[in-house]
């Protein structure tokens, strides 16, 4: 039925071709109409800044004036970016592959919980994850404070923040779920009879695993590895917040060159290198994707309790390890935000350790009395405002496009990839483009866009838009015309048809897209760190700022804010999962 539906649609234009030539111009304009907003918006705030970056980075004068020091920065950050991403990917595979087998092959108590737990970090803002890791392993974290207390040490014994290990660990924490999903799915769809055939042909267990199981999984492992590599390559918040000043990837270098050294040409050049790399990786990835489905066999594998002692041991050890690895940073954060474990800055005499709400009540006080240090609760307010604007903006722009995409024509197929381009550009590059493109007065007035908070929801909208469209489009496309026709034949007016047939599905998808945009905006860190005005900080920016300041109270407030952010985003993730239509896209 579906086939002839498509057939009919494909045939329709052919039949009308004769009259087409007359009204071609009008038809094109009509089909372009839903795209108008998006084209204007992305043109102004994405493509124009991109061209600007190209010009700033590659104009002959800038290239000639490039210093030896800049070249050194470029070389070293590029090498380090590849190095840390490669290492992170290997480590992620080292944990992810056994975990993929664990989830795909075995049944064990707490499996669903553990699966959810491993998937949560992927959607959490980087500042939350960074704060979680410092709460666990940082100089003021649980581990160090406990060790200092037990052994009466003056300085924290475990040095975690500011090491390569911290960056790698956080990357593994973030991206293991990708390997579990992609490779785990491939394992679950492996035809068990292939392994049985190999056994009956004389393959012993090691050779069976190498020649058959692993060989069949190779495309999906490669795809997962490449995707993880892309995420590690473009990682910003983790490297900046956990790596400290000693480590600089391309993303971090773009940020520091632009914001600290005001060296825009170098920042632009780094951006272009970054863009070129991610472009190559993305093309490679899209080439790999068709190979990931190894066999069209339905789920034939029987998921069972692990047989035998050695497998039971494997399942027990790995599941307990994963549980601790994911639970500790996520739980250390909220607990730490309610516990006083050290003296606040300037606090003398008797300190009361233990449960406290101080960190939360301090969020409402402007202690520094400076316009650049607004009280944290204002940052919460700002973030909510930005997120609200992002939701409105991305829905206004995304809804017409998603509707057009739900009934694609030739034109829409051409425009579709254009929409997804912003996904390929990193958030930091996006921010850089905006600040170098809008740093001069507009239209002869005094108004400079960069000095206003307007660019923040604009940047967030560019990032959220692909997700919003990808959430709306399948839902809108899923409404079969037959239902509308059935309702119409039964006597419903077009308006009634829309309310009876479209509205229930559209409402759900719209809510889901809105929550998506809201959550993305709330946690966005990369673009914000360049675009946000210091007097209107967002929550993640404020958390990063408080994390880097000395004093127990500042740290406690960072913990409190990160906890709030974590729970709000967690709620968002949960809502999206609940609202997700079966079969709607992931990632």
């Amino acid at each position, binding site marked *: 039925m579906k086939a002839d539906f498509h057939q009919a649609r494909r045939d329709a234009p052919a039949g009308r071709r004769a009259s087409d030539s007359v009204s071609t111009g009008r038809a094109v304009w009509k089909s372009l109409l839903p795209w108008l907003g998006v084209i204007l918006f992305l043109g102004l705030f994405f493509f124009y800044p991109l061209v600007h970056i190209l010009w700033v980075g590659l104009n002959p004068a800038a290239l000639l004036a490039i210093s030896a020091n800049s070249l050194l920065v470029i070389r070293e950050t590029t090498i380090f970016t590849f190095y840390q991403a490669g290492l992170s990917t290997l480590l992620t595979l080292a944990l992810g592959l056994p975990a993929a087998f664990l989830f795909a092959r075995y049944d064990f108590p707490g499996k669903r919980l553990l699966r959810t737990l491993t998937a949560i970090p992927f959607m959490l803002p980087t500042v939350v994850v960074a704060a979680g890791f410092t709460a666990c392993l940082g100089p003021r974290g649980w581990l160090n404070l406990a060790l200092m207390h037990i052994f009466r040490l003056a300085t924290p014994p475990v040095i975690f923040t500011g090491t390569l290990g911290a960056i790698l660990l956080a990357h593994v924490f973030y991206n293991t779920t990708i390997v579990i999903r992609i490779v785990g799915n491939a394992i679950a769809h492996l035809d068990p009879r*292939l392994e049985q055939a*190999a056994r*009956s042909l*004389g393959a012993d267990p090691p050779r069976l695993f190498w020649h058959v199981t692993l060989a069949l999984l190779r495309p999906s492992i490669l795809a997962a590895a490449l995707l993880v590599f892309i995420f590690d390559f473009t990682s910003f918040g983790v490297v900046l917040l956990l790596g400290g000043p000693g480590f600089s990837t391309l993303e971090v270098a773009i940020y520091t060159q632009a914001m600290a050294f005001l060296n825009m040409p170098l920042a632009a050049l780094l951006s272009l290198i970054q863009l070129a790399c991610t472009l190559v990786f993305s093309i490679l990835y899209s080439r790999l994707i068709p190979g990931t489905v190894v*066999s069209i066999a339905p789920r034939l594998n029987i998921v069972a309790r692990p047989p035998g002692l050695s497998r039971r041991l494997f399942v027990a050890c790995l599941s307990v390890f994963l549980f601790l690895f994911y639970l500790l940073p996520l739980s250390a954060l909220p607990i730490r935000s309610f516990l006083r474990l050290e003296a606040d800055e300037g606090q003398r005499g008797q300190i009361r350790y233990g449960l406290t709400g101080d960190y939360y009540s301090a969020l409402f006080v402007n202690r520094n009395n400076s316009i650049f240090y607004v009280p944290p609760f204002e940052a919460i307010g700002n973030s909510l405002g930005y997120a609200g604007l992002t939701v409105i903006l991305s829905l206004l722009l995304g809804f017409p496009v998603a509707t057009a995409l739900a009934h694609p024509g030739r034109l829409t197929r051409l425009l579709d990839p254009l929409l997804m381009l912003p996904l390929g550009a990193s958030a930091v590059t996006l921010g850089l483009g905006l600040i170098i493109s809008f740093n001069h007065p507009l239209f002869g007035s005094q108004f400079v866009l960069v000095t206003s908070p307007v660019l923040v929801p604009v940047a967030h909208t560019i990032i959220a838009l692909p997700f919003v469209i990808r959430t709306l489009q399948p839902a809108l496309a899923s409404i079969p015309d037959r239902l509308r026709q059935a309702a119409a034949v039964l006597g419903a007016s077009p308006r009634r048809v829309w309310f009876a047939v479209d509205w229930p599905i559209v409402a759900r998808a719209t809510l889901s897209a809105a929550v998506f945009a809201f959550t993305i905006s709330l946690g966005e860190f990369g673009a914000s760190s360049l675009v946000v005005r210091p007097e209107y900080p967002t929550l993640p920016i404020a958390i990063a700022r408080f994390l880097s300041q000395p004093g127990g109270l500042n740290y406690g407030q960072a913990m409190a804010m990160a906890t709030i952010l974590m729970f709000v985003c967690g709620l968002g993730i949960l809502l999206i999962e609940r609202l997700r239509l079966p079969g709607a896209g992931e990632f």
Partner: protein
Amino acid sequence: MGMLEIRDLYKSYEGTMLLRGISFSVAATETVCLLGASGSGKSTLLRIIAGLETAEQGQVCWDGEDLAAIPAHRRGFGLVFQDYALFPHMTVGENVAFGLKMLGLSRAEIEARLSGVLEKVNLLHFMDRRVTELSGGEQQRVALARALAPNPNLLMFDEPLGALDRSLREQLMEELRELLHTNRIPAIYVTHDQEEAFKLADRIMLLHNGEIVREGLPAEIWADPGSAWAARFLDVGNILEGTARPDGSIETAAGIFHFPGLPAQPAGDKVNVLIRPAGARRVSNAGAGQPNSLTGVVTDVVFAHERFKVVLAGHLYFYLPEPAQIGERLTLQLSSNALQCLT
């Protein structure tokens, strides 16, 4: 020369007994067909013999030696799967060479044996093709070549032709028959299709409710299915429920039938009467009421090549050389070897 012996196998699946006390043996050059309805446990039996599953009780022996401790990859038994289970990441040649590689043969030896076996199944020019590009029949030949290549001690087939269309099945059946006869490898062939079983088997075993209910040469089994279930399953003919009468004849809904030479059943006993459709002769309606005659109204006539399938009211069918008219009243005289009494 090896010989397989199965002793008293028991196996249950999700609480129901799948195999209850299976015992049989396969001689050195013999092709044995296991014939049973789907779900009768015949695939499970093969997988137990292959070592892919374990039985709860009983033994699988090769030349008198129990194989319980020998894992699947060291049994040297070939298995052809229902949907072939070809390795999708390998070419035709690599698939067939897999077992040879596992034997640890030299490259030259593998090459030689590979082309030999591919030639046997007419696939030599397919060597470098991907298996995903092949048609069903070609895939089936690759699967056969792959199982044959390492010279297995025993070859097992799990409904290998089930997924193919009719004409291709007939052709492959012929090829298989020839291959089994020329190679003289002991083989177990599992199927639910009686046509395949009768064509390929030296010996047939009927599997029902986890037990072997009948075993013998194809002709023996056709001549005497042994039970009403087997006769129905093999589609030997019409089966009527009847009651034994004191004079030794049996009364059914279609008439009273006499069985000369049959030991008399106790009167009132329920028995089944098998009426083979080929042993009937049309007589004039005046002959109605004669012993072993049968009268009915024709409800359907189906052309069946050299003859006609004539269906009478009550779903009784017969093969007659001449067609009859639908609605016509027909009297048939049954020859005594068309009649059989089954318990």
